[in-house]
């Protein structure tokens, strides 16, 4: 299991959140916010923007969680708010300008996070992607969204999601292979026989 599917929220906490109990909100925040922040940071490439997303998401939790019908739906609801908040920021002119001008903050700069061999290469490669492409890859391959769901989220088609996924992997693999000394130029990864 990856992404938000990893989050285990005790049912009594989830019930408390749906009831509007402030202590439960606090427990829920401690359990879920690190995932919200991790995902938002990965999508936006900027910690400050990601913390703003966390703030907006949890204000919505406090104000609107009582509208969620079942405790089982709570984490999925939070995930969908997070994705929407990230998308909204990606579309903002300010974010587009920042993304064009500044390098991303990298999560692997964090102290104390466990890293595995080769991971920082792919982390670096991720930062090379266009934000929208990175978001498609993350939603599809880590969060388990389908192409149809991603297309709907972005106001586009499933085909758009598929092509963005392929484009993203082309960049990721090219970068990865380059690290191994096997230079692959963009556009050469399609195989012919």
């Amino acid at each position, binding site marked *: 299991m*990856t*992404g938000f599917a*990893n989050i285990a929220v005790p049912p009594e906490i989830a019930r408390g959140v749906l009831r509007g109990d*402030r202590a439960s*909100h606090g427990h829920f*925040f*401690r359990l879920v*916010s*690190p*995932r919200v*922040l*991790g995902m938002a940071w*990965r999508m936006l490439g900027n910690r*400050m*923007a*990601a*913390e*703003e997303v*966390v*703030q*907006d998401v*949890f*204000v919505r939790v*406090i*104000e609107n969680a009582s509208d969620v019908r079942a405790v089982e739906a709570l984490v999925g609801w939070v995930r969908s708010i997070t994705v*929407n*908040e990230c*998308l*909204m920021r990606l*579309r*903002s*002119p*300010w*974010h587009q300008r920042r993304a064009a001008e500044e390098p991303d903050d990298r*999560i692997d700069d*964090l102290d104390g*996070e466990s890293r*595995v061999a080769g*991971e920082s290469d*792919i982390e670096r490669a*991720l930062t090379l992607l266009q934000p929208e492409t990175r978001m498609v*890859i*993350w939603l599809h*391959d*880590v969060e388990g969204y389908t192409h149809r769901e991603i297309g709907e989220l972005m*106001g586009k088609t499933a085909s758009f999601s*598929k*092509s963005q*996924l*392929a484009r993203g*992997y*082309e960049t*990721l*693999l090219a970068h*990865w292979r380059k690290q191994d000394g096997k230079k692959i130029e963009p556009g050469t*990864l*399609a*195989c*012919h*026989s």
Partner: protein
Amino acid sequence: MERKSNLEHLLAIRDGEPVDAAQVAAIGGDVQAQQLLGELTAARAALRQLDVAVPPSPDLWARIEARADRQARSRHGGQAARWGWAGLAAGVLLASGVFLLGVPESSRLAAPDSGISELVARSRVLEREILQVNQPSGSSSEQALMFRLADIDAELNGVGGDAIPLTAARRAALWQRRVELLETLRALQSTPAPQVQFAVY
């Protein structure tokens, strides 16, 4: 016969999506395609290893509670109360077309580092541009944006008994968000409503 097996097809095979049987069979005899398929699978596994939980700033929950409380009070006290500290009522503001956001000059000038100064300057430019719009729509999206701006200005000004001292990073984040919201508001005012995609806060 030439066969092209591109990344989209390989990704579909990797992900167990419906693909043409002939394509799957063809890849079975294509060493290069099989190698690429293996790399795509390995890359996905590496991506999933990047799925980290990142602890938020220690004071973030307190800020969220403070903001939620502020918003709840303004709902109970009516919308005008939300703007009260700034001396403006949202209805008047929307009806009159006067856009005066509530960040006092002292706060605007208290921008110790160049990053914030740039954001403050950008805010001013955007406010001037928004002021030139003679007929604000008064739409719910526009109102929601203004209320979020009012929340940000309240936090920048330390309004309310629950105000938490701002760190430099938080102040920068708030100014950054303020610019984003003003840019969205300007886009909303200058674009026909059906063409604007906007999520209400």
